[in-house]
């Protein structure tokens, strides 16, 4: 492990989030936190960071951390155990199940947040030594279709281009990518290109996302019709002399079949428009722009990948680039934007069920080569089960032991409720985690193993442009958290594979990984970082970002395939004739709409990290469903209300956001919320578990769905220094706030119940506002001058201003005026404040009186003449005289209430 520098200097590392892979400078504060800034030296971001990356410093708290190994004991509760006991237990149970039911009865489910070294050890252990290829990863949900598409077309999972292409392109085509929210730093690079070089942008997406600029061409196509659009494009290119005949002839095969199929799917602009639901004019404009622009990059992400025909979509796009020879050239390439920090590293390792290792597959020569390299007697010889099928096998009882590392499948997989139930059937359910609770951990885990988190662990990650960067430790690991590779190595040793898992550091593993990539490669495989296989430990620690391939004795190579050189026996690329595009499900009268799912700007995956950041909680704090105004009207929904969203697989209750940006007939719901932080907002439970035949990636964006209004009489929020258990009957969304825990809720129960709920744990120093007749209850308890807990509940549109109260909650102390106004739930900024009342008869306050004295009043009678103060009962006259005497020595109090920041 990297030692923590006592001088607390900035340590360069890589962001924990998306596949852009931004460099970060983390300066530990010596108290477990760190200041975060962009690394100006890193080629992915040159110092720039997005909202999520910038807020990483707010996510380093230990509140929800798993700190010690735990095992479910006889009573059913999780108990802390020693590492050795936990590891013995895991190894023993795996051994038992493998001996009884064979290696096919066990599985690993990994994560794109694991480091390459962790991935490598997991993959080696399962495929090489346990002898099963049941190793899959949440990357299956993310970019498996791109992998499959790349492999079909290029013979290898190769990203042909690099980020510089985004700076140098004249046309940027974004397909199924909300890069503005999901890859913001790259999006900023593209905007800079637009502004500085006049590049144009085309956005192809069923939703009009924030990626669409005012001057961009937006193609709001029907879901699942991307293949039709790009088939139409291929036909247009062919029919308008835009093909690169030489490139096709020299470096590709299969063009004739592909163009024939394309004509069949969308043989003209008109046919394309019909198939996609787009206007002919828009289709024609897109085709012309693509045909006429040599430097075109087509970027695609989940809108393409997360589909039952995702692989075909990728190939339909790639076909157009192959047909024009626009691949691997500066500013011209297809470009898959990966969603996770190390999905690429996982692909390089081969940590997926349909790969073996190091960009090698399950062909006899590859199997033999890896067997020899690993000295692995029981190497898996055929593909394992991909994510969705893996969990279906668990549900059927075929897989009996599962080890989940660093991911939350009970939230993120399709049919997530079914997944959660399946997990409960496991004989052995091991989870390596950072957090002590999430939906997966809570789904009946038998063994919990504390893994090091971002900032503590050390190793490498690879971003979307094949750039390998170091993630470095800048914090000490808390409790007994350990690197994932160490945990697996210890289990491997206990399984009797100690000789193959004698790694003592991430650098050890990286060297072996690099050696395998170069092993009997000779240029036959794209992934080769052989030049790095002899790095010393200190070289590894100091390693600068490096783009692969890094072949021994070869020059660096930023791009692939401009001159062919594909990874097939004939070195040629394959055109793929895609299937006729059609969604695998039908809408019906009962499920008249389709559900699209995706990310929002400031959250990441299941919020186990971003959900800790108050800053990130501000953007879109509640789980919601976006609806087109016409659909809202048809289904009786109003903006801000609640709705029940139902599919054949599950049901959610979400806030309604009515938006013109949503396509008619389609709903959109973000994927981030779970049982751990919201009620009825597990959007994964709605998604149909239908997968792509090649990639196994599920169709997360087109599940038939119905929506009905759901009424909550009351809305409210609670803020507390300690976590709260809100009453079961309420709909709740937990929100990170400064200084404690925030909860937004809706409910139909009576207010008195909420009052007693608050009183059951509030301190004795309780302030309350009760207007039960008006449907309002608010309460705040204090410790000294600091809010301890507060609860605001009221009619739907009068529950108090969450932002105002949140700011006051964040303050260490409330002044008297702030406390007086707190339960108004409204901002007191700018309100005139007369000060404490001096003249009770006419309600004249001290500040007003002092102002008048400052304005020249010299006697009580003067004041009376101007303000009437003292002219009724006269009992304030002595105080008026005192104020006259005092003013001049000390100024009056502040005129307005200052809100806390």
């Amino acid at each position: 492990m990297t030692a923590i520098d006592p001088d607390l200097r900035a340590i360069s590392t890589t962001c924990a989030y998306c596949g852009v892979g931004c460099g970060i400078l983390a300066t530990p504060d010596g108290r477990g936190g760190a200041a975060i800034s962009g690394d100006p030296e890193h080629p992915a971001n040159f110092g720039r960071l997005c909202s999520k990356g910038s807020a990483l410093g707010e996510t380093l708290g230990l509140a929800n951390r798993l700190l010690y190994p735990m095992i479910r004991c006889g009573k059913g509760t999780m108990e802390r155990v020693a590492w050795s006991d936990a590891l013995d237990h895991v190894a023993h149970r795996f051994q038992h199940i493998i001996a009884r039911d064979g290696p096919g009865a066990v599985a690993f489910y990994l994560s794109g947040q694991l480091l390459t070294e962790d991935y490598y050890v997991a993959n080696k252990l399962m495929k090489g030594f346990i002898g099963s290829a049941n190793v899959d990863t949440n990357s299956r949900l993310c970019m498996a279709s791109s992998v499959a598409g790349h492999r079909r077309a290029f013979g290898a999972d190769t990203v042909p281009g690099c980020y510089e292409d985004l700076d140098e392109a004249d046309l940027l085509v974004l397909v199924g990518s909300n890069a503005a929210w999901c890859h913001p730093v790259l999006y900023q690079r593209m905007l800079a290109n637009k502004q500085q070089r006049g590049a144009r942008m085309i956005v192809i997406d069923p939703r009009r996302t924030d990626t669409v600029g005012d001057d961009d061409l937006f193609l709001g196509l029907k879901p699942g019709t991307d293949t039709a659009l790009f088939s139409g494009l291929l036909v247009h290119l062919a029919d308008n002399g835009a093909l690169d005949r030489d490139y096709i002839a020299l470096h590709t095969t299969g063009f004739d079949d592909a163009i024939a199929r394309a004509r069949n799917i969308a043989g003209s602009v008109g046919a394309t428009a019909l198939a996609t639901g787009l206007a002919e004019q828009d289709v024609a404009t897109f085709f012309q722009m693509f045909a006429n622009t040599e430097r075109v990059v087509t970027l695609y992400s989940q809108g393409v990948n997360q589909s039952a025909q995702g692989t075909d979509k990728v190939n339909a796009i790639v076909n157009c680039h192959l047909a024009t020879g626009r691949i691997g050239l500066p500013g011209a390439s297809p470009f898959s934007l990966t969603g996770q920090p190390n999905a690429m590293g996982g692909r390089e390792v081969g940590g997926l069920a349909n790969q073996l290792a190091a960009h090698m597959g399950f062909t006899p020569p590859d199997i033999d080569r890896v067997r020899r390299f690993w000295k692995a007697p029981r190497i898996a010889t055929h593909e394992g089960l991909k994510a969705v099928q893996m969990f279906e096998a668990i549900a059927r009882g075929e897989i009996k032991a599962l080890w989940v590392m660093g991911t939350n499948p009970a939230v993120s997989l399709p049919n997530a409720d079914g997944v959660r139930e399946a997990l409960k059937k496991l004989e052995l359910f091991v989870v390596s985690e950072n957090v002590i609770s999430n939906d997966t951990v809570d789904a009946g885990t038998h063994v919990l193993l504390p893994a090091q988190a971002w900032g503590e662990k050390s190793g490498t990650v690879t971003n979307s442009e094949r750039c390998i960067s170091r993630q470095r430790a800048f914090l000490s690991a808390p409790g007994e958290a350990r690197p994932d590779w160490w945990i697996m190595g210890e289990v491997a040793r206990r399984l009797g594979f100690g000789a193959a898992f004698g790694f003592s550091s991430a650098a050890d593993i990286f060297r072996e990984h690099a050696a395998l990539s170069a092993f009997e490669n000779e240029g036959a495989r794209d992934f080769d970082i052989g030049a790095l296989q002899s790095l010393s430990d200190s070289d590894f620690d100091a390693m600068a970002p490096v783009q692969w391939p890094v072949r021994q004795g070869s020059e660096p190579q930023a791009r692939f395939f401009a001159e062919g050189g594909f990874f097939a026996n004939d070195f040629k690329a394959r055109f793929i004739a895609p299937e006729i595009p059609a969604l695998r499900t039908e809408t019906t009268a009962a499920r008249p709409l389709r559900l699209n799912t995706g990310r929002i700007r400031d959250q990441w995956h299941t919020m186990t990290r971003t959900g800790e950041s108050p800053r990130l909680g501000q953007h879109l704090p509640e789980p919601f469903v976006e609806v087109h105004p016409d659909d809202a009207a048809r289904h009786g929904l109003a903006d801000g209300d609640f709705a029940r969203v139902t599919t054949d697989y599950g049901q959610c209750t979400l806030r309604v956001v009515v938006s013109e940006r949503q396509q008619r007939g389609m709903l959109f719901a973000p994927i981030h919320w779970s049982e751990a932080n919201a009620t009825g907002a597990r959007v994964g439970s709605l998604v149909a578990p239908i997968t792509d035949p090649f990639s196994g990636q599920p169709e997360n964006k087109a599940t038939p769905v119905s929506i009905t209004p759901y009424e909550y009489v009351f809305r409210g929020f609670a803020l507390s220094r300690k976590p709260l258990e809100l009453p079961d009957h309420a709909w709740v969304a937990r929100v990170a706030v400064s200084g404690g825990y925030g909860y937004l809720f809706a409910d139909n129960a009576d207010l008195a119940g909420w009052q007693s709920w608050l009183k059951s744990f509030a301190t004795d120093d309780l302030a309350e506002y009760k207007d039960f007749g008006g449907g309002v209850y608010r309460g705040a308890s204090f410790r000294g001058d600091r809010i301890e807990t507060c609860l605001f509940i009221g009619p739907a549109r009068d529950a108090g201003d969450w932002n105002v109260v949140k700011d006051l909650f964040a303050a260490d102390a409330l002044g008297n005026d702030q406390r007086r106004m707190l339960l108004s739930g409204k901002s007191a900024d700018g309100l005139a404040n007369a000060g404490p009342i001096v003249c009770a008869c006419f309600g004249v306050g001290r500040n007003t009186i002092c102002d008048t004295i400052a304005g020249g009043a010299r006697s009580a009678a003067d004041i009376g003449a101007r303000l009437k103060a003292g002219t009724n009962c006269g009992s304030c006259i002595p105080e008026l005289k005192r104020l006259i005497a005092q003013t001049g020595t000390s100024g009056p109090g502040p005129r307005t209430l200052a809100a806390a920041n």
Partner: protein
Amino acid sequence: MSEPLVIVGNGMAAARLVDELAKVALGRYAIAVIGDEPRLAYNRVLLSSVLAGETTSQDIELRPASWWRDRGVTLKYGCTATEIDVGRRELKIENDESVPFSKLVLTTGSSPLRLNVPGADLAGVHTFRDSRDVDLLLSLAAQKKRVVVVGGGLLGLEAAYGLAKAGAPVTLVHLMDRLMERQLDAPAAELLKSLVERKGIEILLNANTARIHGETRVEGVELVDGRLIPADAVIFAAGIRPNIALAREAGIAVNRGVVVDDHLQTGAPDVFAIGECAEHRGICYGLVEPAYEQARVLARHLAGREASYPGSIVATNLKVSGVSVFSAGDFMGGDGSETIVLSDLNHGTYKKLVIAGGRLTGAVLIGDVADALWYLELIRTRQPTQRIRADMMFGRSLAIRSEAA
């Protein structure tokens, strides 16, 4: 020739009436003020402040002698009126003198009630009504005499506070289960109790005085439940009785007070009554503000203008330093009304607003009284409050901003 107008009583109501008459009927009347207190009219409300040492006896004088003189008023203070001859329009005063009048105004005020218990006539049993009482109480306090104040209303609390502030150990005994029960609901009274206790005053509720012990002087107070409180002095502050003897003996209709109509006229022609001695529509007010309102109406009436008094919506303000209390209107909130409550007891705040028919009908405020007068105005004007209901509790400026938004 000016008509002779005689005012009996030289308290706050009398002073305000002279002031109002000077504004609307200057010179029309030759005014004589006849009062039994031996000094110029003073602000009786401030007696508790004098007792508490927050102001001086001189400082509470309402008007200097010159002011009265400038308005041509004949002042006879320290002089008791003994009889009204309604038929002859003459007021008899001590020494068998008589003063003729064309108009007579009674501002005779009220007297503290003395409980009818054994020992009530012992030396050391006092009341708290005028500046002579205050002088006496100040000398008690200076000697650190143990004082029992009987009565937990406005007057009793102010007396107890003043005495405690002046240095006397004070126990306040109150018959009811809460302080100021005629102005406060239970939570407000409870908070008030704790705030007053913080001033060093012991408070006993449900405390029914049975007798006052002592040979010749007060030695202690015994309660009906047997509790015995050692004391050197007892202050009765358990209510007031309008001074109506003069009117009653003159055959003028009286009830609890001197009965007046909406012109403040008694049953006798050209005889009027205002202030605490008057009973208007069945109500005897014990506060200064209705007296001032009555003085204003009567002055206009006597000036020959159209004026009538519809009664007052009263508000109570307790004058105990650091303990702000306000109560107005239907403070309990009965059937058909709704209440909104804001309480922050540890910060000494309790606020209750009573709403009926979409209007504010009552308010109780402890601690935060900044918007008391606004609430009083809302109660008096009966303006609809539905639109400001959500913000009304938090003050006029917030409500106005929200209403404008």
